């Protein structure tokens, strides 16, 4: 199902927790193929209000997020940038329904994620979300292909697993086990697995962390393609500033709060990125 972007009045967030109607031309994103008006019609598919998250790691209390507000728009590619420990992974997990905030509210379309039950969250993830984790988390006893199939089997309209693997350039390694793959290859499998289900939402945590430049670009290209062709709302965590150039918006996070949000006038193509 190809999604189109409905025309609505966009709302922006200036980090102070207030919802304001979209502002003037300085927030307009310049995209090669898009028209300025279309931006105004982007919808906030994620509405995050005042979430905080506190962890207990052993005896230590960690305040990962402090009363954070954010909107994510349908179909956008957002990059979450920030130093380690800033709470980006936490935020991503909450967006994806993998974690629940200690306080606050998260809405996805008409789903109230904070008040959702465990099975509702599971259903939400099953139907809508694709993940790429920092630590790959592949099933060691399944081959690369099977790892992808694991996910496509529970999806409504997935692409063929082989296709997904082809997109990430791993066709020859389909039948290898994770133990036989390098870190970068494992990460690409993880990406294939995430995109194979043609998700509405794609969340990636440091997808290029362990990869060399060339492989990284392949990965990013895949992410970008999915975002473009399927209209998948995509959020990517990275600490690499250069990558931020391919995003629609760059959300700077620090100490559990949003520091600033930038719009990219022009989105760079993954192939053009340099780091």
């Amino acid at each position, binding site marked *: 199902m190809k999604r189109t972007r409905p025309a609505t009045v966009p709302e922006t967030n200036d980090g102070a927790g207030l919802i304001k109607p979209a502002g003037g031309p300085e927030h307009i994103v310049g995209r090669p193929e898009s028209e300025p008006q279309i931006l105004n019609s982007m919808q906030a598919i994620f509405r995050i209000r005042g979430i905080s998250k506190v962890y207990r790691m*052993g005896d230590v209390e960690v305040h990962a997020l402090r009363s954070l507000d954010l909107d994510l728009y349908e179909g956008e590619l957002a990059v979450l940038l920030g130093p380690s420990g800033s709470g980006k992974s936490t935020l991503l997990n909450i967006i994806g329904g993998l*974690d629940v905030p200690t306080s606050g509210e998260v809405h996805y379309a008409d789903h109230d994620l904070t008040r959702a039950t465990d099975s509702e969250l599971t259903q939400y993830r*099953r139907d809508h979300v694709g*993940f790429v984790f920092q630590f790959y988390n592949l099933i060691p006893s399944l081959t690369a292909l099977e790892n992808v199939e694991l996910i496509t089997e529970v999806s409504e309209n997935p692409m063929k697993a082989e296709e997904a693997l082809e997109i990430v350039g791993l066709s020859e390694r389909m039948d290898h086990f994770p133990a036989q793959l390098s870190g970068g290859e494992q990460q690409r499998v993880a990406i294939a697995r995430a995109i194979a289900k043609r998700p509405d939402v794609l969340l990636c945590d440091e997808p290029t962390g362990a990869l060399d430049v060339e492989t990284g670009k392949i990965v990013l290209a895949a992410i970008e393609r999915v975002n473009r062709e399927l209209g998948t709302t995509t959020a990517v965590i990275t600490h690499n500033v250069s990558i931020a150039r391919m995003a629609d918006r760059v959300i700077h996070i620090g100490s559990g709060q949003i520091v600033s949000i930038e719009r990219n006038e022009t989105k760079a193509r993954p192939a053009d990125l340099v780091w």
Partner: protein
Amino acid sequence: MLSSLNKKLLRDILHLRGQIIATALVVACGVASFVSMQSTYDSLLITQQDYYAEYRFGDVFAHAKRAPENLRASIERIPGVASVQTRIVSEVVLDLPGLREPVQGRIVSIPEHRSPMLNDLHLLRGRYVDPRNSREIIVSGAFADANGFDPGDSIDAIINGRWRRLTIAGVALSPEYIYEIRGGDIFPDNKRFGILWMDRTSVAAAFDMEGAFNDLSLTLAPGASEQQVIDEVDRALEAFGGTGAYGRSDQLSFRFLVNEFAQLRSFGIVLPLIFLGVTAFLLHLVLSRLVNTQREQVGLLKAFGYTNFEIGSHYLGLAAAAVSGGLLLGMLLGVWMGSWMTTMYADYFHFPLLNFSVGFPLIVYSILITLASAAAGAMSAVRNAVRLPAAEAMRPEPPASFQAGLLERLQMTRVLPSSARIIFRNLSRHPVKATLAVLGISLASALLFTGFYFFDAIDRIVEVQFRQAIREDAVVAFNSLRPQSARRELAEMEGVRSVETFRAVPVRLRSENHSKRVALMGTERNPDLHRIVDERSQVFTVPPGGIVLSDALADTLGVAIGDQVTIDVLEGARPTAKVELAATVDELMGMNAYMHIRALNRLMNEDDVISGAYLEIDPKYSDVVYAKLKRMPAVAGVGLPGAMLETFNETFGKTIGQFTSILVLFSSAIVFGVVYNAARIALSERGRELASLRVLGFTKGEVTRILLGEHAFLTALGIPIGFAVGFFLCATMNNLMDTELLRLPLVFSQKTFVLTALFVALAAVVSGLLIMRRLRRLDLIAVLKTRE
């Protein structure tokens, strides 16, 4: 086309095959012992009931001196009596070729022509007696087997003072003599005592009992009161020298069987349940830890939208795989073993029919219990994992909180090498896990310990009963009371080294509403040959007055030292007297009552008379002595304790021995399964950590030492705890297994402790070696990459 999840399942099973096999082994042993022992017990019970019913085993038995046959009709008319069988019973001395000692036979009359009768005979071989031939007999099965008799063989018997040659027409079994045991013996001596069935007319003629009977058996009508019928029968027989009718519970063979069954029940119900319980517990433990090692994968599946149900079923499948192999094997093994044991027992009990069946409920129970515990184990782990938000599940477990623990506080940290430090710290951070591991090992050890204990118990019984208590070479029983001068007469016999006399009187002991029919033994004051010895080897002597009882008998009567016990004598003048309970003895065999022979004679208002004697015989003259005894008219029979020891070893010793061997076998397998699993899972859980250590520069040896050191420590801890648990297990089994006939002493030899420890240690060493192989092949990079 299998779904990926199922492929994962299959591959995981393959990868974990070592543990699954170990688990399956544990399950198989638990289930096999449960099924085999229970099915054996059930089958034997059914077989026995069928046997008794089909062959019309009597409900009430009575003996008299001589009653007219026409009394039968009036007994039949007693309300509650279904049918009556009168017979003539007499003990005779037999001369068997090849046996120099006199053998005792009990002649029981049967109708001339074969007809359904009470306590019916099941012919094993040969035929019924031919009434035209007054010398034909049918002999009892065990007796025939022990002596190698077949139809056509002859036996010489002294009947009414004259030697008669009897011919064996057939060999048969009777429900009345499942145990061919004569009064006074503890165990059947199948070589020297047997039943001879002879036609009524010949028996009557031989013993001058035409138109009379001296023994009867009857069956009760449904709903009849046994006690009332017994009272009526006593009344009817009193004038004819009746010695008191009794029900099945006092019938010797039945009592013996009941005792054996009571013991079997402990083995047949309690022990298997314990086995299964331990198995279930271990299963739970193993599977929960197993699933826990996949915590992150669970998180991942959840992250990608697999429902709890889907994830749960997946691990349920893993649990089922782990268990079903063992379950199937255990069932098959259990059924096969049960059938074998039942056959063996049926042979041993001389049951003519065999009804081996494995109850459907039994199968269902074992399946349910096993699967349920496996599922519970797996599910508890899954639940723990899915309960967490997926992100947390996927997060590596936080480094355990390391605070100053016991070791640090003791300032011992510097003392231990770093590997030991890691071991102890790790154990103290996971106290629950460590405790459960130790618990599992100790439970398995306890089972093994219990098995070895039974051998100790039997050894002790033999030691006390047959080497300390009973030291005579022969027991001579007279066919009627004899004066004291008989003692001298026996002592004068060439070859008799010493003599001790006794008097046995059938009595009913009473206290308030409790009563028990026993043979009251009058013994000499300070015997050397036949002594009263308790389980601690303490020797008891009878006081000049008063009565001494076995602990078990005192308990049954509810009396304590100092209490008065009423004695109703069942023969002779039938006096009733009250005596004081002077002492109780913790005896191992039988429910016995003792008095000083002089006091007993006084109680009976009789001169110094004796009913038998214990002899110590010079082996050089034993042939001569036995020959003389054989020909003494007054001698009814001679018992040989040596033969009784043989029988004990053959019967009781063998059956317990066999059960125990099975117990030990299975326990060993369980021990191995548990120990291996504990170590293997530890490896899974700690694999990554250990690999990191390797990367940091720890050698293979050091890493091995850490993992196996922990393993060794837990096993070493489990052993003494296993002893303690085993002790309780034995004490419990002991209480359940106490029967009238036999009590197992609670003694543990050094061998038991050492063998148990050795077995467990061996299991630990072998599993350690197996895991060491894995450890060595640990592909560091792979482990660090895949986090398994």
